[in-house]
């Protein structure tokens, strides 16, 4: 670890993202404002205009145009950034598949927010989880520091020659975007060392002319998709390497694909994604103090998926619960589906339960999390609970 020049400031998650982007020196930023992403793009436009950041800021007319502009920039080898949330992410969807299929290493910040109808500006994770199949790497952060750090890491991962895949950094709307924390702002010189200027042969240029976006026939389409899938698997090693290198240089380590917290001797483990991990940590500590063997599996990456880690964990524990701020209508929470598929591959027959809630910005309380742990512990001996349960469901539904 090098000598750290500590420079901590009190900022919101959105501002932390803006600093992470500034330090990564993108050539082009293209965005359309949407709550709760707005502070990020406001700070970035300010940084560009006051000369702190040498970047072209494109104020486009919609998210569809924002991501299309980012693709245009990326196709000539520029480092690009865009940011959105919720409706904006969904409006980008067509271009998201273009970007991943074209292997443009664009980095996007997505402020997790629920999706209309009913229209709501508050948080859940239905926006990005609905896009797991879009071919983007997806990481979810727990706090503002991790948000900043992941912006820097994201470029390194996405731009890696073996990966060349766009990457989305997700942070929970309002809970992270609008709350203030002490955040360490890394030194520019160190970031430059970690993240050199983007060089890629995969770009349009006069010396080596290339067409970056084209059609395919039934003859070769499957091969394109195979390679895209392979790149996503290759990304796992790159993620692990990048994480290690980042930890050595900056002294912060996020354990890579997942973070296991007190899982080694745990009977019951709760799987979390994003900021809810913070609350679960508090409850887990309290229950540990009372002698209950409980732990947390904080999933960081949803794509590529931490299958290996979940399979290994399944042999150590007796019950697993998944908190989903999401529902795939007609089935179950999307995180649960993904976790369950890994459990099936490991032939683990442990107690499992999917807790669905926190939709449209509803708080998830410590008491609710404590109950989840108790449900899991009870499930080890007698399995008489529903596998998929909406928690804190008010009685006035149209059942």
């Amino acid at each position, binding site marked *: 670890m090098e000598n750290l020049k500590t420079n901590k400031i009190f900022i919101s998650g959105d501002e932390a993202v803006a600093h992470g982007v500034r330090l990564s020196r993108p050539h082009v930023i293209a965005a359309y404002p949407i709550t709760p992403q707005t502070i990020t*793009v406001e700070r970035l436009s300010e940084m560009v205009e*006051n000369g702190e950041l040498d970047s072209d800021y494109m104020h486009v007319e919609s998210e569809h145009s924002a991501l299309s502009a980012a693709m245009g920039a990326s196709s000539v080898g520029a480092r690009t950034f865009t940011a959105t949330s919720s409706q904006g992410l969904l409006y980008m969807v067509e271009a998201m598949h273009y970007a991943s299929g074209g292997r443009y290493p664009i980095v996007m910040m997505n402020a997790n927010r629920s999706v209309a109808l009913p*229209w709501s500006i508050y948080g859940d994770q239905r926006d990005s989880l609905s896009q797991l199949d879009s071919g983007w790497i997806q990481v979810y952060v727990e706090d503002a520091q991790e948000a900043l750090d992941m912006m820097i890491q994201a470029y390194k991962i996405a731009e890696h020659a073996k990966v060349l895949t766009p990457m989305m950094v997700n942070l929970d709307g309002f809970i992270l975007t609008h709350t203030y924390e002490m955040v360490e702002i890394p030194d520019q010189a160190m970031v430059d060392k970690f993240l050199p200027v983007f060089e890629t042969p995969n770009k349009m240029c006069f010396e080596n002319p290339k067409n970056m976006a084209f059609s395919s026939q039934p003859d070769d389409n499957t091969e394109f998709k195979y390679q895209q899938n392979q790149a996503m698997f290759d990304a796992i090693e790159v993620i692990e390497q990048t994480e290690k290198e980042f930890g050595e240089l900056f002294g912060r380590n996020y354990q890579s694909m997942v973070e296991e917290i007190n899982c080694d001797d745990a009977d019951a483990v709760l799987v979390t994604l994003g900021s809810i991990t913070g609350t679960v940590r508090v409850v887990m500590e309290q229950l540990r103090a009372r002698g209950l063997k409980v732990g947390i599996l904080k999933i960081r990456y949803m794509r590529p998926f931490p299958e290996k880690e979940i399979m290994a964990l399944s042999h150590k524990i007796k019950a697993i619960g998944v908190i989903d701020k999401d529902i795939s209508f007609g089935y179950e929470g999307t995180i649960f589906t993904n976790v369950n598929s890994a459990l099936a591959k490991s032939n683990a027959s442990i107690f499992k339960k999917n807790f669905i809630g926190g939709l449209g910005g509803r708080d998830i309380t410590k008491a609710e999390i404590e109950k989840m742990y108790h449900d899991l512990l009870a499930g080890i001996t007698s399995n008489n609970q529903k596998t998929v349960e909406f928690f804190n469901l008010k009685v006035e539904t149209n059942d």
Partner: protein
Amino acid sequence: MADIDIKDIIKEENLIYTKPKVITDTVMHYCPGCSHGVAHKLVAEVIDDMDIQDKTIGISPVGCSVLAYNYLDIDWQQAAHGRAPALATAAKRLMPNHYVFTYQGDGDLASIGAAEILHACNRGENITVIFINNAIYGMTGGQMAPTTLVGMKTATSPYGRSTELNGYPLKITELIAQLPGVAYVTRQSVHTPAAVRKTKKAIRKGFENQDKKIGTSFIEIVSTCSSGWKLSPVKSNEWMEEHMFKFYPLGDLKDSEKESEESYKKYIE
């Protein structure tokens, strides 16, 4: 002087003004000095005056007026950001005896929804469009819109809009006035009692045009966004008069009816 009891004042014979029937009792969320409230009231008064409360469908946008359905007691649909003209097209075509209007901000109409409004107007849909142009994305916290004036400071143009970076302010109303499908295009405001009266007349005309089936009616209301502009209500009105009206001059841009099919058929004959 004897104390006057409030009960002595609230009497039928003292009544000089009452809010439109169509306006609900819900407290509006609009900032002090915002034009949205006045514009809502005018739409409500026209609906009252024409006695069409049960036959009016509003399409609300995404923007500060997304909650318009809480304030006007008529049928409403909320559209995705920018898509109100598409919903209005369908509603009007299926229920031609209803009065269908969209109520849209400049971000909704002139930015993300530019395609929908141009095409609905070009098709000459028999709807009324109320376009609230405050030259900013109000709801999201005052970012630059396509309509933002050159040099104007916003949350995403902190040193003022520049044409080199951001192009020119879009006079979408002038563009729309060129389309053969539109019957009536006007630009008004609500900054003085006289202006309020004129705007109300324009809205009424826009609604009455639906009876005549003569094409789209498009009413721009040059508006304030005191919060986005970071000015007091009074200063906002002054700023609007001084700067907005110079670039967005008030008055009618078109008052006729949509062009005939005959005049277009000749090209393939």
